[in-house]
């Protein structure tokens, strides 16, 4: 028998404590003090501090009950009495009921504050020197019979005792604990009563379960004529217990049954809900309910313990109200009519709602409390105890519910008193914060917030979450900083992104990103190299270049070996070479193609070598750095010289490489035409090597040899790790026009499939951009692939915008009009702006807007005025975008001519409400009077919506320091249509120009509250 007592949660410093009474069949009975530590006593500190605490229950013995051996039942009085003493009643097999007490009046029992008893020990009271004082005693008159159950009424004045049936003696006795008499107040005879429970709110009624038959309700308000009220016929009559939150609800279970019934006093025909503790773990044994109890502190929580102590089940119930057959008729909402005078006319019901057959209003006059709520099982949690379930005991295992910050179920073995605890897991409810990497979860009644803040960690194994990286990068100034030569202030700022990515290693791929930015920078700086047919291809990608070139003039540029003789020249340089014959054959076999666009594309790949000298320099540098395989590849790919390739391999210290070189050279010696008539064994060897070698360059070489020297077949073989630039360069050198066109499309598809290892993927973003460009659909596809792989839409967006801007800029230099940007990139821009707003990174958002508008403005201004548009549709589209953007970002301020303060356009044009706190750090734009004219369409009446928006914006600017509305300005309500019109006129007249203008406002008369004088007129300050 185990009973826990906890009055009001006595929590201090994360510890909950109370008293517990135990009675075991062999260990005696005693009173304990328990403590539950929810948090570690000493906070653990340090970077890797982990909270490993499980709530820990500890018990210390207060005293033992002197007549221990025969205790059958224990109960606490539900409240400490006035003197602060705690009473605990023990019912004995002899029929004696002894009430013990501890507290200030009983100083002979010292209640130690040091609880050091480990819970693992069994509850053994035998060693205690303290004997609990018995303050009063009751004994059932008549025959001696065991007291089976005890229950204190809610006010502890009455003690109900249930006795075993002996002859015709009464079984239910009610004692008055306040009286000195030990005679029972009420005596009732109920056959086979097995359980008792008081109704907590009506002091003198109680329930008694009659074993296997019924549950009876007794009313003893008049002790002389106890009224045995209604009886509920049910076999689920054991363990009756009343819900302390709802006096009308109680629960019971049946003998040798796994079912639990919940009853409602108002509807006693059937249980309102039946629950089941479910099947046992082992199929041989059935699981029976041993005890049930309502959770003392949580509404609608009931738990049941298995008789064998193997598990407990906690049920969370919902109360569901039955669907009303008749929906209450629609009535105007009381709330809406009372709270909002401006909406009183709209609050009346639109008639269309009745068509839905549904009421949308408040519950007319239906009082929800009068409806009978039906409990519904909401959640069920099974808690398994690792008790030895082999013990077959007559007495059921005892369970108790310990409420704390983390609730516990305590189980005691009735035989040996062994106590085990298990935490009740509340179903957590987790929500992410929009503002940061905070995850907040509610567990029961406590709420835990965990912040996953960005942290720069050296040599950390784990990857940082991308959202943290994005936010941190935004804070650190990762932005749209591009190299626009027309705007000197932005010149070279692309370096800041590169520097940032190199300085702060956000993730493993930071360096790769920096390389991508460097690539953009390089392309921009060398853009004049990539002009073909009057079009700039620096950011368009090689695919577009090849397609354009071959579409315009098919095969016109295709001239074998003409004007491009790096490899040929090499043949002469090495005339003294032993492999001269073979060399010549090879050189002529690997015939190269050359044309202007191929040269340009090779330059884009950074694989263009003017002459052998330049190539030799590259090869030497590669050899110096130990990249012999790569040098060999370069030698073969860009000079068609196997000889030079073998030389590179031979110069390596690696025996393996030299062996490979020897193999090839001996093979080449023995055959005249090495690649055409190679024996099968050689081809097989080459195939094996191409699959097993690590170096991608060597693998390409052997793939080539195994493919009988066909570059086309070689290129179509995907070789992981082989740079895309080399792949493209080889294609440019060795494929004819039609093959090249075909191959470049295959390559594009391969890259955009996003499979890493095949040349595409995240690790080669700059090479993907090299092939696909960054401007049009292909470029957006490339960026899209990057996002899909990494989630880093921030980098993709900034790269996309930068690429488009840089391209527009360099195109403009050669007189072309092209501002090409994919719609998706603009979509990411919107998302990113929203996200920065949500993170309240207004400064960063504003910087982005400024940078972007400067780019587009420069482009428009220059292109529109300087050069005639070549594509009218394109230009108009860009122009419209520009105009739209500019309208969003134009700001108009009204400020007082007298004091210079911005003027609130409130009803009375008062300037007094303005203080410096309203001014925003970005130039005093905000919180006061900036007007978003583009949001106000001419002729449209300004209604409640905008008025409300203004209020909202104003509030945010006051506490957030910046507006959340579009652009860098907040809204105002232009209630004065004249001012409104004037603003609109100025707005229109200033499109396309920059700077700050001061415009006098006509026909307005303002009062400056600072100077207390009338001043005509107010002044516009137009910032564009």
């Amino acid at each position, binding site marked *: 028998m185990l009973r826990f007592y906890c009055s009001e949660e006595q929590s201090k410093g994360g510890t909950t404590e109370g008293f517990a009474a135990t009675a075991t069949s062999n260990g005696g009975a005693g009173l304990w003090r328990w403590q539950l530590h929810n948090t570690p006593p000493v906070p653990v500190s340090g*970077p890797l501090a*982990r909270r490993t*605490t499980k709530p820990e229950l500890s018990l210390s013995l207060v005293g033992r009950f002197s007549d221990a051996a025969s205790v059958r039942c224990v109960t606490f009085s539900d409240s400490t009495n006035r003197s602060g003493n705690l009473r605990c009643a023990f019912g004995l097999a002899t029929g004696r009921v002894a009430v013990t007490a501890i507290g200030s009046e009983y100083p002979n029992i010292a209640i130690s504050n040091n609880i050091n008893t480990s819970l693992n020990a069994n509850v053994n009271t035998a060693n205690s020197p303290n004997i609990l004082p018995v303050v009063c005693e009751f004994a059932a008159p008549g025959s001696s019979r065991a007291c089976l159950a005890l229950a204190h009424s809610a006010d502890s004045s009455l003690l109900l005792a249930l006795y075993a049936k002996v002859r015709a003696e009464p079984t239910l006795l009610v004692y008055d604990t306040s009286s000195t008499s030990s005679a029972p107040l009420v005596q009732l005879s109920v056959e086979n009563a097995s359980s008792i429970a008081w109704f907590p709110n009506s002091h003198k009624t109680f329930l008694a379960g009659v074993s296997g038959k019924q549950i009876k309700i007794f009313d003893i308000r008049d002790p002389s004529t106890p009224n045995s009220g209604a009886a509920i016929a049910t076999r689920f009559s054991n363990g009756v217990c009343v819900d302390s939150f709802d006096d009308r609800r109680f629960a019971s279970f049946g003998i040798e049954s796994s079912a639990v019934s919940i009853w409602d006093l108002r509807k006693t025909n059937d249980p309102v809900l039946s629950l089941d503790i479910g099947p046992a773990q082992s199929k041989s044994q059935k699981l029976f309910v041993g005890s049930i109890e309502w959770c003392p502190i*949580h509404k*609608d*929580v009931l738990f049941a313990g298995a008789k064998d102590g193997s598990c407990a089940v906690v049920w969370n119930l*919902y109360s*569901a*109200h*039955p*669907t009303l057959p008749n*929906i*209450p008729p629609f009535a105007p909402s009381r*709330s*809406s009519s009372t709270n*909002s005078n401006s909406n009183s006319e*709209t*609050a009346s019901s*639109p008639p*269309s709602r009745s068509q*839905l057959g549904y009421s949308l*209003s408040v*519950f007319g006059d239906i009082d929800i409390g009068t409806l009978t709520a*039906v409990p*519904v099982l909401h959640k069920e949690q099974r808690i398994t105890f690792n008790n030895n379930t082999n013990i077959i005991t007559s007495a059921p295992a005892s369970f108790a519910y310990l409420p704390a910050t*983390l609730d516990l179920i305590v189980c005691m073995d009735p035989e040996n008193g062994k106590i085990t605890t298990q935490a009740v*897991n509340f179903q*957590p*409810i987790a929500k*992410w*914060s929009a503002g940061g*990497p905070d995850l907040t*979860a*509610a567990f*029961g*009644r406590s*709420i835990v*917030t*965990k*912040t*996953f*803040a960005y942290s720069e960690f050296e040599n950390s194994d784990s*990857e940082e*979450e991308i959202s943290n990286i994005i936010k941190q990068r935004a804070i650190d100034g990762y932005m749209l900083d591009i190299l626009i030569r027309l705007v000197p202030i932005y010149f070279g700022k692309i370096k800041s992104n590169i520097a940032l990515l190199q300085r702060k290693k956000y993730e493993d791929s930071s360096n790769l990103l920096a390389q991508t930015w460097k690539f953009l920078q390089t392309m921009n700086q060398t853009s004049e190299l990539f002009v073909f047919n009057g079009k700039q291809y620096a950011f368009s990608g090689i695919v577009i270049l090849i397609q354009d070139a071959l579409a315009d003039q098919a095969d016109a540029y295709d001239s074998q070996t003409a004007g491009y003789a790096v490899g040929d020249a090499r043949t002469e340089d090495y005339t003294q070479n032993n492999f001269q014959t073979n060399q010549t054959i090879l050189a002529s076999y690997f015939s190269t193609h050359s044309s202007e666009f191929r040269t340009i594309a090779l330059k884009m790949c950074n694989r263009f070598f003017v002459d052998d000298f330049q190539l030799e320099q590259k090869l030497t540098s590669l050899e110096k750095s130990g990249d012999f395989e790569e040098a060999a590849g370069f030698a073969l790919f860009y000079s068609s010289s196997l000889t030079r390739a073998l030389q590179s391999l031979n110069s390596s210290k690696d025996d393996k490489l030299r062996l490979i070189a020897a193999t090839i050279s001996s093979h080449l010696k023995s055959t005249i035409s090495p690649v055409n008539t190679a024996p099968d064994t050689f081809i097989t060897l080459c195939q094996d090597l191409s699959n097993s070698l690590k170096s991608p360059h060597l693998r390409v070489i052997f793939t080539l040899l195994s493919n009988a020297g066909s570059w086309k077949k070689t290129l179509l073989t995907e070789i992981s790790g082989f740079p895309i630039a080399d792949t493209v360069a080889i294609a440019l050198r060795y494929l004819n026009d039609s093959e090249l066109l075909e191959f470049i499309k295959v390559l594009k598809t391969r890259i955009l*499939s996003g499979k890493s290892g095949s040349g595409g993927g995240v690790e080669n973003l700059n090479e993907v951009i090299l092939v696909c460009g960054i401007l049009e659909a292909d470029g957006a596809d490339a960026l*899209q692939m990057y996002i*899909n792989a990494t989630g880093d839409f921030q980098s993709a967006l900034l790269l996309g915008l930068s690429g488009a801007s840089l391209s527009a800029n360099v195109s403009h230099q050669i007189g072309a009009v092209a501002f090409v940007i994919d719609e998706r990139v603009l979509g990411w821009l*919107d998302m990113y702006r*929203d*996200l920065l707003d949500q993170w309240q990174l207004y400064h960063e958002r504003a910087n982005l807007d400024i940078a972007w508008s400067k780019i587009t403005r420069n482009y428009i201004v220059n292109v529109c005025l300087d050069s005639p548009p070549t594509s009218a549709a394109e230009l108009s589209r860009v122009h419209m975008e520009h105009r739209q*953007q500019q309208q*969003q970002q134009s700001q108009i301020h009204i400020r007082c001519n007298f004091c210079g303060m911005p003027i609130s356009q409130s009803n009375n044009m008062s300037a007094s409400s303005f203080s410096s706190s309203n001014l925003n750090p970005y130039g005093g734009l905000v919180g006061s009077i900036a007007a978003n004219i583009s*949001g106000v369409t001419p002729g449209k009446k300004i209604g*409640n*919506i905008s*008025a409300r*928006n203004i*209020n*909202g914006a104003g509030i945010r600017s006051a506490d957030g320091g910046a507006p959340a509305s*579009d652009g860098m300005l907040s809204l105002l309500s232009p209630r004065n249509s004249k001012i409104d019109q004037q603003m609109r006129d100025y707005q229109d007249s200033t499109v396309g120009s920059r700077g700050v203008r001061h415009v006098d406002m006509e026909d307005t008369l303002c009062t400056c509250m600072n100077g207390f004088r009338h001043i005509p007129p107010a002044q516009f300050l137009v910032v564009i």
Partner: protein
Amino acid sequence: MTWVPICSNNYLSGFRETEMMRHRTFVPEHGDLVHDLAYDYYGTRLATCSSDQKIKVWELTTDGPGGGETWTLSDQWKAHDYSIVGVSFGGGGGTGLRLLASASLDRSVKVWEEQDHETAGRRWKLRATLATASGVLGVSFAPAPASASASASVAAQSPGLRLAAAAQDGVVRVFECPDPAAPSVWVLQQELPPLVPPKQPHALALALPFAWCPNPRAPSSTLLVAASHYSPSALPLNNNNNNNNFAAVVRIYSLNQVSNQWLPVEYLPDTDPDLDSSSNNNSKSNKNNFNTAHNDAILDVAWAPNMGRSYELVATASRDGNVRIWKLTWSSPSATKVSSATPSPHNDRPSLTVAAPSAPAIAITTTGKWLVQLVACFADHGGPVARVEWNLIGTVLASCGAQDGKVRLWKYSYADSWTSAGILNPE
């Protein structure tokens, strides 16, 4: 593409655990269990609700010990006549509205608006009470429409404010506020009925999950996810007498701009669940062994915010113990077929096709279709999974286990895989 099933109990293995990672606990001192909580648009406020019939609104302040952030009570009030089981913040962002909706078992949804100034000690004022036929299990405001600059490319019409509420009668109701300036007027736009009505109309104990699609730029206009439970016995195809006596699907609704009606356009899983369960039994050899069907009730759904991905993600939490992540790829008819190289979990399915129950007979005026793939399935909770929740940019999923009482995090990482990103424990 490889989706790695995770079996990691590492304590926060993914996130770097440093001093930076603060772990704060506070007790909101509700009189009973906290049933729901909600962040506002900026993440600076938190609303909690409880069986004690109170709503509490907390503000993040930095006056905690050591300058740390703490939640400070901003307002609290008794809001309903019965347990409050759901709260949701509305407005925020560019809308300038500060609304709060609460769902209670007292059969009503209440809409509250914050006042600039306290009146009678209260900042939040009741604006509307929306009655439903039975207790409300959850409420959620539709996400704010895209910002003005984007709205040009999306539908021109402004949808006003919307909120959805799921009730114990199995119906998800969509309410609309035509004029956001007057948040006291709400119109029932539509009732989304259950696939199979619950037997006891008042006694839907399970959650009736639904979620708004948070992406205003998602194709085929605004979308809503709602899960429906039904047992196969209610279906004509009932040949499985195994333990799969319960199956559930998620329906995706799309707002038809012409009729202004929400119509189901797709199902998760996208075929009949009976077929799925049978195919699962037949394909034990399947290496991934993704349980593509929900073998038990769906307890929560969450649509991931999409920051630039070309596909959408939806997570489901099921009572069968699994967290599932579904990938939805929008394919317009003109677009090329999705590469067949990606292994689809549907490959092993028999080619028998059965129309999903109560499939939409009305043609949807959309020009594309969702391709549904199950991409991840985690059974780590070892028991019913009660909630799923995506982070702000849809890269981390938090799942709440009802049995183990833990919050587990799943992170999207490189190479198209999801990995365990940590566990949040109550202490």
